[in-house]
């Protein structure tokens, strides 16, 4: 993947950029705490996008009734929303899981992107850095071409295979960067990741060439599968989302300490290698699970954390949770665009994230440069 290559090239000279070198927010005197305002804004964004998400789609359903229907699903609510059976199916079986998945996948990708950038002290690190995309792609392709995905009722093996592939790739990169029992430097790990990704991509390309009949299915997976997901996928993702999020949020303090440098962090009683390992595992787990259900959605893990840094501050205590909130809101909103721009036809979400996200990011970048 492109981002990976860039990182490898840019990694050594850009390690430890100035924005990470600031241990605390000395430069932002007005907000010394966690940035309550921003957390509130993030939560509000999530809520608004969720509402917009369930009430918009190619088929018009009155938003008021949608809300009534969803509230009616809560234990205490028992309202008659007045929706027809097929409208209820549209809102509850089709839209609601897509919105939830969009929020979760966006949160995981952006959150793990922020974590990767912190661990590697490299602004170009993204959730796919250590071969997750290539591994997931190979896993999914394998499941598709071998027909594992055919005619299975309960559990779709394609996301599972993608998940396993992603984790195998990360584990391979991690193992290969270890020498004589000592973990290599972050740069070694990145390079190992690049090599593993290239190798796995080659295997995937070969498989694809040998099984041209499955080409279309493979592309459909790569370009994002939110369009056909339901509650099953949500259930598949939730456990990993909880674990990954909990670990990452617990580690933000350590990441902030780490950003002053390994020696300083050690003298403050931290074990840099261990912190890195734990954060990497948690972030990779989250990203792998997200990729498994959603396909390869690029851009979110790179752009959201940077956008957050530009407007809300650079400490991990802020960047990680805010990235999760805004990443979730961003992806769920993108998915609304995916199903409404060409309604009632679908657009692949992977295309839209970059299409909407890139100009938006450039806007922030320019405003930042001017001020």
């Amino acid at each position: 993947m492109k981002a990976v290559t860039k990182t490898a090239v840019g990694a050594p000279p850009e390690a430890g950029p100035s924005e990470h070198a600031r241990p605390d927010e000395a430069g932002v005197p007005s907000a010394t705490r966690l940035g309550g305002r921003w957390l509130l804004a993030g939560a509000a964004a999530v809520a608004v996008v969720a509402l917009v998400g369930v009430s918009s789609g190619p088929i018009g359903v009155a938003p008021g009734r949608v809300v009534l229907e969803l509230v009616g699903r809560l234990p205490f609510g028992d309202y008659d929303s007045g929706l027809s059976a097929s409208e209820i199916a549209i809102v509850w079986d089709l839209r609601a899981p897509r919105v939830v998945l969009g929020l979760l996948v966006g949160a995981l990708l952006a959150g793990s992107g922020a974590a990767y950038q912190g661990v590697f002290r490299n602004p170009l690190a993204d959730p796919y850095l250590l071969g997750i995309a290539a591994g997931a792609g190979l896993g999914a392709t394998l499941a598709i071409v071998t027909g594992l995905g055919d005619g299975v009722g309960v559990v779709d093996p394609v996301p599972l295979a993608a998940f396993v592939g992603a984790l195998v790739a990360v584990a391979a990169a991690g193992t290969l960067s270890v020498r004589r029992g000592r973990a290599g430097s972050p740069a070694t790990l990145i390079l190992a990741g690049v090599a593993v990704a290239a190798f796995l991509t080659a295997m995937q390309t070969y498989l694809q060439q040998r099984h041209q009949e499955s080409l279309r299915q493979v592309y459909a997976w790569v370009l994002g599968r939110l369009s056909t997901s339901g509650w099953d996928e949500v259930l598949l993702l939730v456990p990993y989302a909880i674990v990954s999020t909990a670990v990452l949020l617990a580690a933000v303090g350590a990441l902030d300490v780490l950003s002053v440098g390994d020696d300083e962090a050690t003298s403050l009683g931290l074990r840099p290698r261990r912190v890195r390992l734990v954060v990497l595992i948690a972030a990779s787990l989250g990203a792998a699970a997200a990729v498994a259900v959603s396909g390869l959605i690029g851009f979110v893990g790179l752009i959201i954390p940077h956008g957050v840094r530009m407007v809300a501050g650079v400490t991990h205590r802020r960047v990680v949770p805010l990235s999760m909130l805004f990443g979730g809101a961003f992806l769920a909103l993108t998915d609304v665009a995916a199903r409404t721009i060409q309604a009632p036809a679908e657009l692949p979400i992977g295309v839209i994230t970059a299409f909407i996200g890139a100009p938006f990011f450039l806007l922030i970048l320019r405003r930042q440069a001017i001020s």
Partner: protein
Amino acid sequence: MGSLRKLFVLLLVVAGCGGDGAITTTTDDTSTTTTAAAPSITTATTAATTTTESDTGFPVTIETGGAVVTIGSRPERVVSLSPTATEMLFAIGAGEQVVAVDSFSYYPPEAPVTDLSGFEPNVEAVVGFEPDLVVLSSDPGDVVAGLEAAGVPALVFPAAVTLDDTYTQIEQLGAATGRIGDAAALVGQMRADIDELAASVPERDEPLTYYHELDDTLFSVTSRTFIGEIYALAGLQSIADAADPDGEAGGYPQLSAELLVSADPDLIFLADTKCCGQNADTLAQRPGFDQLTAVAEGRVIELDDDIASRWGPRIVEFFRKIVEATAAIEVPAG
């Protein structure tokens, strides 16, 4: 991600390959005269066995896929890299002249399948079979030019846009292989079968609607496509028409599940039983699909992906399935 964008473009190409084929197929003089031949032979398959030896008329000039190709004498070593063309060749009795076919040309079973690729043909590998005619459905990477350089004539028969394209291609293959009479008989039989089936469809005031599934991410076909034209012969209307009204998606839009549930088609045809392992049960299990009338009423028809995607002689079989499913739905009284 740059590679993602590339993939998307590729997907569009894959999805749209049947749509934009503005083919300028005009039949050669020798074969146009035979199109009206009486359909006296009983079925298409028996037509394949009755070999009327060597129509004369070589050299013939065939214009297809934007190129004019002259074939000097009756080819005896044909290589087909197009599954549809393979089916056509065998159906017109030219099977014995075929020495090798691509890896997906596994119908009819007697076709000499090799591991030649129809998607990325290797000129050297093809020439290795010492062909005197090569038939393809597309020309990726200038294979035709490469074959020409090796002195091998090559015919490109792109995906049909209309049924007439199918008939024309069969007739042109007949002319190219010296089977003009057999080809004309096959076309006549196909026309007669399709007319008869179409005539058996009961009339309705309100046309029935259908959803034709190409894969499990809800790519479908509009009425403007070749497949859509076949359904239209049975009086059916595609629910995908709403998703690609101006043909911008090449007639192959990806539908939103919401549209499908709210349009609630009368019939669902699955053309992804092989590619994607779909069947009536997997369809019913998808989120929200239990609401569909077609699912509740058992009007989900599982098709053979190949028959439903090739534009060859078996299109009659495809049409027969459609007609049977349509006829099974009672015409509302009054």
